[in-house]
């Protein structure tokens, strides 16, 4: 497995380097300027010049890029222009919150997909199929800002069972019961679209596998349908679903921006929104590059999991 990972490393590094250039250029192509944000509407040219000088924005873009890259390579993520403080600290605090939220959502999505997918092929009930299909369509069609508001109005306002937003006051490990209550609505909101896509893929993969000759043979040997599904069909259906799962992780991180805003969850999504709206160049650059890095890591992990689940990939060296 290690040689397999090593083979993927150079391309991942090149992708990251190209992404750093792209991110640096894109951020500067966005209309607006951190000096405008800082100086405000009534600023004099002298004020604007003083701020530009203070932020180090008076050098050439190329010099600014290499300065940023050099600092990154030496482990210095820089200082935020506007949000304030060390970017490493800001990203660290936000990343933990986003990781907990996205991790919970992923867990919910995977469990929901497994239960629904397996139940769907085991029951062979048309009614269950129709219900699952309708819920899936709704979950994909409704954007998080709609499902988020519906969940808040239902479970926090009309029927006040769960907090409308925020993070647990004693941290995530202080009181797990309270943490679960704070996580329930945002994690569910974030998980719904991913769960729907995973359910569809898994159900289809299970049905394809159920048509394979080895299933007919197993049935002929008198093995129960449930046992065949759980011990033979499900493991064979998983590799394709794992690939989709990798793509869904990217979707979860993107969706976190909206969900964090709706549920006042102070993660990377809220930080991205704040950094972009204030044109905080160093912070936006680090956050975008981080998202590229996370996506690359997730893809590598997905490929490794795929190879682990499907020996043909390992042995064939394909990836």
């Amino acid at each position, binding site marked *: 497995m290690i040689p397999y990972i090593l083979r993927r490393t150079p391309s991942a590094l090149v992708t990251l380097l190209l992404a750093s250039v792209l991110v640096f250029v894109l951020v500067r192509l966005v209309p607006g300027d951190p000096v405008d944000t800082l100086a405000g509407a009534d600023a004099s040219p002298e004020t604007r010049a003083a701020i530009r000088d203070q932020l180090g924005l008076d050098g050439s873009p190329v010099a600014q890029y290499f300065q940023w890259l050099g600092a990154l390579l030496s482990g210095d993520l820089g200082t935020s222009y506007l949000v304030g403080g060390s970017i490493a600290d800001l990203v660290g605090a936000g990343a933990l919150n986003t990781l907990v939220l996205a991790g919970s959502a992923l867990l919910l999505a995977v469990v929901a997909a497994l239960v629904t997918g397996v139940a769907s092929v085991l029951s062979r009930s048309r009614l269950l199929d129709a219900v699952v299909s309708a819920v899936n369509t709704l979950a994909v069609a409704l954007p998080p800002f709609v499902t988020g508001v519906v969940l808040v109005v239902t479970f*926090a306002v009309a029927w006040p069972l769960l907090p409308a*937003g925020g993070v647990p006051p004693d941290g995530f490990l202080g009181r797990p019961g309270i943490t679960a209550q704070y996580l329930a609505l945002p994690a569910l909101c974030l998980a719904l679209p991913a769960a729907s896509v995973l359910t569809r893929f898994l159900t289809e993969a299970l049905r394809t596998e159920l048509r394979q000759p080895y299933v007919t043979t197993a049935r002929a040997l008198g093995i129960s349908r449930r046992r065949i599904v759980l011990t033979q069909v499900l493991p064979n259906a998983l590799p394709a679903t794992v690939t989709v799962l990798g793509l869904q992780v990217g979707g979860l991180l993107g969706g976190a921006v909206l969900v964090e805003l709706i549920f006042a969850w102070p993660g990377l999504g809220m930080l991205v929104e704040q950094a972009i709206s204030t044109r905080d160049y160093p912070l936006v650059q680090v956050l975008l590059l981080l998202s590229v890095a996370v996506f690359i890591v997730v893809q590598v992990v997905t490929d490794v999991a795929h190879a682990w689940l499907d020996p043909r990939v390992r042995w064939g060296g394909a990836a």
Partner: protein
Amino acid sequence: MRVPARVATALLAALTLVGCSSAVAEQKSRSGGQGAAGGTLVAAIGTDLVPAQFYSGLQAASTIAGLTYESLIDYPVDSLEPQPSLATSWKLAEDGLSLTLDLQPEATFQTGRDLTSDDVKFSLQTYADPARAAQLQRTAAAITSYDTSDPDRIVLGFDHPVSNIFDLLDQVPIIDRESIAGFDSGTKYVGTGPFTFDSWTPNSRLEFSRYDDYWGEKALLDEVEVRVIKDSTSQISALRSGQVDVVLGAPARDLEQLERSGEFRAERLTGAEADLYVGTNVTHPALADVEVRQAIAYAIDKRRIAEEVYRDRARAHDLPWPEYSPAYDPELDQRYARDVAKAGELLDGRRVPTLPLAYMAGNPNHEAAAQIVQANLAEVGVETELQPVETSQFLKQLIGAEFEALWVTEHTFAQYTPSTLTVSAYPFNADGNASRFVDADYQRAADAAWKVADGTGAEASRRYAELSRQLLEHLFLIELVETTQEHALSSAVDDIAWSKRGEIDLARTTVSR
């Protein structure tokens, strides 16, 4: 999975979710009892703190300033008569070239250190630093000397009389010079006010506790928590579910509905007004003609904007001054009352091309107002093209005077001494503004209004009248309505107040359920 195992799993999940205690119940059990001291007030704000923009007056900074800091004087919300705060008395020289202020001897910073005249000098000089982009920077820069030989008295010197000097003294928070590094990084805000700043968790919350050695009457609340909830719908949900007690700056569209329920009320921040206006680029070929600008002013239905967009919580006007301003003149204020026929006469024979009309995207009030302006202008044959512009880009275009023709947005500072508007507010600045309007007479009128010793005296009023006449005659900026920010409050909250700066004042506030 067998049935008992399923039931056990479901029970375990339910128990975990509901927990031994409820997060909702915990959030609701923070009051001090009926009208009593103590307890925690939880407020929601829509934007997080940006330490580098502390002096910009944005919501989070304004909340810190209201709770933790004090200024030298305070204006009452309905007048420009300075009242003592950290300055107990003052004397302005007859020629207006110096101002002596005696400081409150009992005042201490929340670190326990006594307030001195050096702290006042440091605060004013910090505010005057151009890199800090404070709104009244130009007025602060007009202070040319400081005498701090007596720790309880400071004498400010000027090269010319400054009519809005008390506006500056009302605006500038007196900060602790020993913790300026924390002030810059957002980790430490030390002032002399009734609450101590405890912490800031980015994108999450600000926390405060009562300052028990406060020199004045101590606050009744034990603690204040300010939560950052960026989505306005989520703010209202948090208020309705009892998880927050106050929404600072609640959207007008939600206030009517909240008030109808009887469990909530709206508190209008009278005295801290903002003004919605249509800006015009006077270098645009069609708008260079003042009669076209006048026609636009006559064509717009300002009352409809006040009634429909602001649900009757705004006042239609033609000049920026509120009714208590020394520059207010009721007759001049309705000079361009809607008159479609007159607008048609003024436009007679003129061919006006389609005019781009920009507004800040995502601001529902500005968008609705822009649509009404568009419809009104179409009635008199002037076609416009609506252009929603992202906030940061809008600000850039405003500062850079880059709008092609027309734009709709708000300005503030009209609630202060009138010269503050023409000295410090970019849309009005006589030396350079978003409309690209430069005129020697207007410059002279603005300068004369600024360089008068008594900003509320008879001579000043005469000069403000000339300023108003210039504004109405040149009409490079068409005022629409005067609006007032509002807070949405749970009925459990009593005695909430605010300053003319729009900062929340919780010194006498109680929370009870």
